């Protein structure tokens, strides 16, 4: 089973490396959104420092959602998805492999570029570190939950917008606690650890349930 997971993971990473566009579009979208806020809201230090956690997290949400459409679309179009569904492997494991690859290609870059946000938004080093960590724990949850939306909307017109409509409400807890963690890090009384416990709990729950739900959604969509 682990071999199947690894095979799918490596396959998807190889495909993305050869296509190249996916990784960069998500990353640049994130950077653009981050850069737009100071232009729209004004570049006053205090303001930016205050809105930074929310802005960073929302930009990560939106970037993550944009990339979701491509999670299954290509495999669906060329028939490899149904072939995967016909292997003797548990579909949830294969899904987990695809989602893991997806996160490595679209979520992890955001985690790595987050210090840029710290820079542009005058965040103290503590807050930047918390931001990076919160994204590290939270973006996999976004990929896992988003996969369910991507599986439900396979092959539909207006897929991207539809996914957003379906998935954004489900992202709210991660947003609240992810941004909350960063805000708490600036506050002496804030208990950042509690936030991370919650985020980790979400991650574990998502790891357990989401591949299974995504597999069910795929079976519905592929009929």
């Amino acid at each position: 089973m682990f071999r199947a997971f690894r095979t799918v993971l490596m396959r998807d990473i190889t495909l993305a490396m050869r296509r190249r566009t996916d990784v960069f579009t998500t990353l640049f979208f994130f950077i653009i959104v981050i850069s737009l806020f100071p232009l729209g809201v004004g570049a006053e230090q205090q303001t930016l420092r205050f809105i930074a956690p929310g802005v960073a997290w929302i930009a990560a949400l939106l970037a993550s959602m944009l990339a979701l459409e491509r999670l299954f679309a290509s495999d669906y179009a060329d028939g490899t998805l149904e072939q995967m569904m016909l292997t003797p492997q548990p579909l949830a494991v294969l899904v987990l492999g695809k989602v893991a690859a997806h996160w490595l290609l679209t979520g992890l870059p955001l985690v790595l570029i987050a210090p840029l946000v710290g820079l542009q938004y005058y965040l103290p080093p503590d807050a930047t570190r918390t931001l990076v960590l919160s994204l590290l724990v939270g973006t996999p949850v976004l990929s896992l939950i988003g996969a369910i939306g991507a599986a439900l909307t396979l092959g539909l017109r207006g897929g991207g917008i539809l996914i957003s409509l379906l998935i954004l409400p489900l992202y709210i807890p991660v947003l609240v606690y992810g941004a909350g963690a960063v805000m708490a890090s600036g506050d002496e009384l804030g208990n950042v650890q509690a936030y991370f416990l919650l985020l980790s709990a979400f991650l574990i729950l998502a790891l357990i349930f989401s591949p299974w739900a995504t597999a069910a959604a795929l079976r519905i969509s592929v009929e």
Partner: protein
Amino acid sequence: MKQGAHANQGVHVKLNLFRFASPAAFYPLAGRLIPWFWALALPSIAFALYWGFFHTPEILSEQKQYYRIIFPHVGAAWMSMWLYVVMVGWAAVGLVFNTRLSFMMASATAPTGALFTFLALWTGAFWGKTSWGTWWDWDPRMTSELILLFLYIGYMALQSAIDDTRRADRAAALLAIVGLICVPIIFWSINCPDPTQCAALHQRSSLEHVERNILVAMFVMAFGFWMYSFAVILMRLRNIILARERHASWVMQLPEVGR
């Protein structure tokens, strides 16, 4: 008979209910029930409004007369949540037993649920304006209602985006179930954005402390809303049945369809 094949799909259950699991059998039954539900709904709602406006205290704290908007507001909020659970219940039955009628019930329930959510938001905004001076203030309860509205809309949007009825039903059903599982987490995160100090969930006093007349009005209103929901949902369900089964012979023979 086609309908028989669908009704007996899956599990052998001795309950009579499975006799009505086919659209053809349920259609006339629903038709007979609808007038009764309307007969229960309209007087209940009227009574609740009357009781709420005329038999409850003139002034409740500083909120003056306008607090009476809570009768439809609370009722609508309750309905919006209950109907979501009902919708998910039918969706789950449909997925497990593969019965078409269950999915039709879920589809019929969604718009009414969304309507109540919208009503709850609207009356809540009105109440907020008259009591606290703002139309909207991100109160956790109101925000939760807003999210619930998004969940309903997502369900309806997904269903209408998929052409194939079967896929649409099942995909939307799965979405609704996932939504229901996430709802407690979502509501909790909105209520307790700071995990170390949880704001009191709805500074709601226990029901014993609430004036009896107010309770009467609220429960009768809720009952009235339930009856209204049954009536409207069954009416919508009949339309859905007609639309989906339009090629079936029993539909062609109906007086309202026959030429």
